């Protein structure tokens, strides 16, 4: 049962071919290696006892009944690991005085969010461990939960962490004027004809990867192997070593098949550390796999910002300045890049527009909720939403067409490279061409005509059209830039290529895929560089013993950084092979040409020697050049010089039923420029998947906490990951402007759809009902909110009717019996 594609012949380019994926063979047949599939001799199973309250002191913990339960081997509380658990790492102190309260993997004295680990059961089976969870008896002295960011930053607010002086972790400022990148912002606003100010809410989201997280640890003497469903085995290894004190060279981390991540598995999680600690304590292999409700409740969340946006312009619609003030919810603790997420957005709020002045301020705020961290786009969806929404608001104030306003202000194709008021240099782009193509794809003129007809006939179903003309920064990241932002690591990537005696090729990459198809795309890259068949290439990844160095997969970085490292390694292989070829062919290197995988002496037909033959000759090593090692293997580490800037125009046509509040996407079209496309099948798939998540933020998904800090969307019944029936058909296309900054010309595609879609959808809904007096609707655009916005005014933000729990809200029955004025709005804000 194999998937055999037609064998490759001749030097036809692999890059650009819609190669069907190598990975599929095991995934469609169930021959997979998910972490939870792992079974080891003597393996024990962990179940985590979790806090049922959002904020409390632990006053007593009685685990005796659990310890006595059948097949339970051990039970631990935070006290048992207090001296060795360290703190989960935060790698991004975004300001010198950022406050990090520390993050125990298991609570010792206080709990700060519902779902925080308070005890660990170790048992012979998963069911035995789970049964014993009920037997652990812990007393809590409940403290007031801090849930509302705007309340949390007021003087005298209850504190999440009583040993701190406030709930503010950091205050980050970027001022384009002060940075020398732009004009004075205050002056720009003082001189402007018009200023439009809006408050937008980025609701809390849950990454909701399909594979629940799982970790397995096998101790062997003083060595440990950790299998984890992680996006970041390399980062995890170094971080877990530092947290636990296990020497880095004694710790091997393996990410086997990983079922999606979307930033949600870009983390060092408490349970990975607990598995290591328990395995070390007991000397036995252990496994932990979460349930879906555990995942939704305790895996890090995303977004959750309150955005105050001010835009300044003149009467003709030339933008003059942008001011951004954010409150960003950190949750209870700082995880790996929690504070960095809003800061990644700081440089993208000005989007594709030529703002002469720009100022960004952000407060990171602690609340008694699960920490936030990366979720697909990480900072850039928030930024893109804000600028694309405020441009529409400005267009309304100016009585201008929203597309005309955008066109008037965006960077023209001939103006690249263009340095923005945020100090970034956009590499390339052509916003006009992408927009024109998108307008044609969606049938814009006909839709506008239909909208007019529905308006005139006062149709209960109104039609709206929304735009999002976006860009993003991809290719995380130039290491020096990360250093200037105080990030704890570099942004390079590593690759190596091993030429096997039979001419087959092993490509080792530090990028760690979890659905992106690296095995296929990397094979295409190497096939072109080395001229060997696609089928002769194997891509190895995700095991720190095989791939010793890497920075892993997130931030649309794999191809634009990791792929380039692969190409650079291949170039070195060819350079070494050229020396061997020259020696074997008794020719000068300068006289050799390399084409289709073969070296030949220029002008001498029939002298060909393939790189695969050279691999065998080098293995035998009977005859190779003096002064050269008998190997043509090579490795490369690539550190990008700049970010890359994919862009695109997304257009959504939305029907809004004004009588029921139901919204329905009629059409969705997008034209993205992600630079050179290595595999169009994979690129289209990434766009589709991103769109689904971007649309889901606009229409369906929200993590809701009640007034006591309970997550009321803790199952897939309540947290609405869209099904096939909830999403439209997508019409997607591409323009291609190769990225000038890397030899592949790729710009990155993993997050594009997710970043672009959300404001296009909301702008479309507003365009449908703006004439009814609606100027904002809070996400997600549930029928209830849309109906309220139309019929009661405001943004429809008030949640479900008192007494229901459909959207949480203040009326939910209390768990802990504590409900303060400050928290009475719960997740509502």
């Amino acid at each position, binding site marked *: 049962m194999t998937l055999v594609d037609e064998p490759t012949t001749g030097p036809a380019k692999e890059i650009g071919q819609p190669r069907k*994926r190598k990975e599929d063979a095991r995934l469609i047949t169930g021959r997979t290696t998910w972490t939870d599939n792992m079974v080891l001799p003597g393996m024990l199973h962990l179940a985590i006892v979790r806090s049922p309250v959002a904020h409390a002191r632990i006053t007593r913990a009685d685990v005796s009944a659990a310890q006595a339960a059948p097949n339970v081997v051990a039970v631990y509380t935070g006290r048992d690991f207090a001296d060795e658990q360290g703190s989960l790492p935060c790698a991004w102190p975004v300001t010198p005085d950022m406050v990090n309260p520390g993050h125990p993997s298991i609570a010792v004295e206080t709990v700060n969010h519902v779902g925080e680990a308070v005890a660990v059961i170790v048992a012979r089976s998963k069911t035995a461990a789970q049964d014993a969870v009920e037997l652990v008896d812990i007393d809590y002295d409940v403290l007031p939960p801090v849930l509302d960011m705007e309340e949390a930053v007021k003087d005298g607010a209850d504190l999440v962490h009583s040993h701190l002086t406030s709930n503010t972790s950091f205050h980050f400022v970027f001022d384009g004027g002060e940075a020398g990148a732009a004009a004075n912002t205050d002056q720009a606003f003082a001189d402007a004809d018009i200023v439009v100010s809006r408050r937008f809410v980025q609701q809390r989201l849950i990454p909701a990867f399909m594979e629940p997280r799982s970790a397995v640890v096998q101790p062997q003497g003083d060595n440990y192997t950790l299998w984890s469903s992680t996006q970041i085995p390399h980062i995890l290894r170094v971080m877990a070593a530092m947290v636990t004190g296990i020497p880095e060279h004694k710790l091997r981390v393996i990410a086997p098949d990983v079922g999606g991540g979307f930033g949600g598995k870009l983390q060092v999680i408490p349970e990975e550390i607990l598995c290591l600690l328990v395995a070390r304590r007991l000397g036995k292999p252990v496994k932990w796999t979460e349930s879906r409700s555990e995942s939704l409740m305790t895996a890090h969340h995303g977004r959750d910002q309150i955005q105050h946006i001010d835009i300044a312009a003149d009467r003709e619609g030339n933008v003059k300045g942008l001011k951004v003030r954010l409150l960003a919810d950190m949750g209870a603790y700082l995880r790996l890049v929690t504070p960095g997420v809003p800061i990644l957005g700081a440089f993208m709020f000005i989007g594709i527009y030529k703002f002469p002045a720009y100022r960004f301020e952000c407060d990171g705020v602690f609340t008694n909720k699960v920490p936030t961290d990366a979720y697909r786009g990480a900072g850039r969806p928030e930024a893109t939403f804000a600028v694309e929404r405020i441009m529409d608001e400005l267009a309304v104030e100016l009585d201008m067409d929203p597309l005309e306003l955008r066109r008037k202000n965006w960077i023209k194709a001939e103006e690249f490279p263009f340095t923005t008021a945020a100090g970034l240099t956009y590499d390339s782009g052509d916003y006009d061409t992408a927009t024109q193509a998108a307008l044609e794809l969606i049938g814009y003129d006909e839709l506008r005509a239909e909208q007019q007809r529905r308006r005139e006939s006062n149709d209960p179903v109104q039609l709206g059209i929304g735009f999002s003309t976006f860009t993003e920064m991809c290719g995380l990241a130039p290491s020096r830039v990360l250093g200037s932002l105080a990030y704890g690591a570099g942004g390079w990537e590593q690759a190596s290529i091993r030429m096997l005696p039979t001419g087959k090729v092993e490509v080792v990459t530090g990028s760690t895929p979890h659905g992106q198809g690296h095995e296929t795309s990397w094979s295409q890259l190497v096939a072109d560089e080395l001229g060997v068949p696609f089928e002769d290439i194997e891509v190895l990844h995700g095991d720190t013993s095989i791939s010793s160095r890497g920075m892993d997969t997130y931030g649309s970085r794999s191809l634009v950084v990791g792929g380039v490292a692969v190409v650079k390694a291949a170039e070195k292989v060819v350079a070494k092979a050229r020396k061997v070829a020259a020696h074997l062919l008794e020719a000068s290197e300068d006289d050799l040409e390399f084409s289709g995988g073969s070296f030949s002496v220029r002008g001498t037909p029939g002298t060909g020697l393939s790189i695969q033959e050279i691999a065998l000759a080098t293995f035998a090593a009977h005859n190779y050049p003096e002064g050269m090692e008998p190997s043509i293997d090579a490795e490369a580490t690539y550190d990008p010089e700049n970010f890359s800037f994919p862009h695109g125009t997304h257009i959504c046509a939305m029907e809004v039923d004004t009588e029921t509040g139901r919204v329905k996407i009629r059409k969705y079209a997008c034209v993205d420029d992600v630079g050179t496309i290595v595999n169009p099948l994979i690129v*289209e*798939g990434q766009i589709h998947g*991103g769109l689904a998540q971007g649309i889901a933020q606009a229409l369906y998904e929200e993590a809701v906490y009640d007034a006591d800090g309970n997550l009321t969307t803790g199952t897939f019944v309540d947290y609405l990951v869209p099904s096939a029936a909830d*999403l439209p058909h997508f019409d997607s296309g591409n323009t291609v402007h190769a990225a000038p900054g890397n030899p592949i010309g790729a710009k990155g595609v993993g997050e594009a759809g997710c970043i672009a879609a959300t404001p296009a959808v909301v702008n479309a809904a507003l365009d449908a009902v703006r004439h009814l007096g609606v100027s904002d609707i809070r996400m997600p655009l549930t029928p209830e909110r849309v109906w309220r916005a139309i019929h009661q005014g405001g943004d429809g933000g008030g949640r479900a009717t008192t007494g229901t729990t459909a959207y949480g809200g203040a009326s939910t029955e209390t768990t802990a019996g504590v409900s303060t004025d400050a928290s009475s709005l719960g997740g509502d804000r």
Partner: protein
Amino acid sequence: MTQISVRVDGASYSDDVEPRTLLVHYLREQLGKVGTVVGCDTSNCGACTVHLDGEAVKSCTVLAVQADGCEVTTIEGIGRDGALHPMQKAFHEMHGLQCGFCTPGMIMASIDLVNDNPNPSEDEVREGIEGNLCRCTGYQNIVRAVQQAAAEMSGGTAAATGAQS
């Protein structure tokens, strides 16, 4: 413990199980049929879908004892004589999967859908698989895959496959 006898992917098994054991846990933990996965605990995601006497069921919602005397087919048992099932082939050809975690359940649900409706429209496919969640693909290529497989399974041409991009 209760004794059950089941045929799974063409082989017969006889085992003692706790009455509370879910079929999916029996398949994974006792039979080692780890191709079938668990994605949620509320029967929403469909990742665990298998066929029970030829009908798609979410195996997290069936007790192992309920499968006593039944024929179970998992993702590991749908290929015939070393060849992929047309639905597996179509998911590969149409790029209907990315991380692949939902794929076993999605394929099993889609086969059942096509058995009931040999020539489903795009909307019928979308409605038909709404009990199966995918976080990666946005479903468009899954819809195309199901339509292509439907055409092959009914012996027809590719008339029903989504020609649109």
